[in-house]
């Protein structure tokens, strides 16, 4: 099982201090973690579950704006002193992680300061980079290149070559119809980069996925790596 990289990067004493406020959890597929307009009850530190932030429109259509795995934390608005959010966060891939009550996070991380506070500043910058890059990507890049980018991002976070992925979510992630999802996945399958059968995505050729993805994948990946580059 992989660890949350933010927590793993903390000095031992700080990690032990915060353990008192962290609860190990299992997160199910599609479990809601943050809901628009509702107070954020917890912040979540994924180990091997992957969360998505999506923005929903009044007509029910939705687009993913960020992916959060073991490099990060679900609940960034709380770090920015906002108790609610306009985006919805839910688990896209099930797995395990840790969570901390919002009150504890405010008192023990935000008000007290310290190494996690510092790391979360860097994480928030990388997170904002991801959101802005995704906005540009959705507008400028083809569905095929975006799908490659997104599969790579999932692959980095689940630590498995095979993971569940529904067509409904892929259509939200790409901002296209299910028919387009089917056609795009079909093209990648034809090129033997992936297989996609009955909702299960299998990465066959990661190297060629990287060359087929748009520049946004590498740009965002590098930004997240910078969180952990500095002491």
């Amino acid at each position, binding site marked *: 099982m992989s660890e949350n990289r933010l927590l793993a990067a903390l000095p031992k004493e700080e990690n032990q201090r915060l353990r008192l406020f962290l609860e190990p*959890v*299992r*997160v*199910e*597929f*599609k*479990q*809601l973690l943050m*809901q628009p307009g509702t107070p954020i009850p917890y912040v979540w530190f994924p180990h091997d579950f992957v969360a998505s932030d999506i923005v*929903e429109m009044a007509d*029910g259509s*939705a687009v993913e704006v960020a992916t959060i795995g073991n490099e990060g934390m679900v609940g960034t608005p709380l770090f920015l002193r906002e108790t609610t959010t306009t985006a*919805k966060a839910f688990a896209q891939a*099930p797995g395990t992680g840790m969570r901390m009550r919002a009150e504890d996070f405010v008192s023990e991380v935000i008000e007290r300061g310290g190494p996690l506070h510092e790391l979360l500043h860097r994480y928030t910058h990388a997170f904002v980079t991801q959101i802005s890059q995704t906005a540009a990507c959705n507008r400028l890049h083809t569905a095929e290149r975006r799908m490659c980018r997104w599969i790579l991002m999932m692959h980095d976070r689940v630590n498995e070559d095979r993971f*569940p992925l*529904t*067509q*409904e*979510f892929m259509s939200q992630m790409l901002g296209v119809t*299910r028919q387009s999802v089917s056609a795009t996945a079909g093209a990648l399958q034809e090129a033997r980069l992936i297989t996609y059968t*009955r*909702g299960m995505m299998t990465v066959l050729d990661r190297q060629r996925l990287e060359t087929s993805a748009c520049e946004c994948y590498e740009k965002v990946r590098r930004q997240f790596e910078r969180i952990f580059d500095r002491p």
Partner: protein
Amino acid sequence: MKRTINEQEFKTLCEEVAARASAILPSMPDGGGGAGPLNESESTGLLLRALFLCVCRHLELDPKAQASELGDDNGFALAQTLEEHMHPEFLYSRIIDECFNGQE
């Protein structure tokens, strides 16, 4: 001919499960038994399991066979079963969220 499910039929099933939530949660296997109150993950899992069973019944599918093909994650098995049988297509995630909000 393959049986299908439409948006209204799915909504009705969701409402039935939501209405029975308080009865479902302690009565499902491993959903109680004195192990203390259920956490959100366990509650979500059990409600999705109940909904998956209802959808299978509606579609005349064997839930065991479905689960053995799609894996033991109830949410994923439900989502994939819907994707393969819904007609016309609809946004099932939103219906599930709306129906189960406040049930946890």
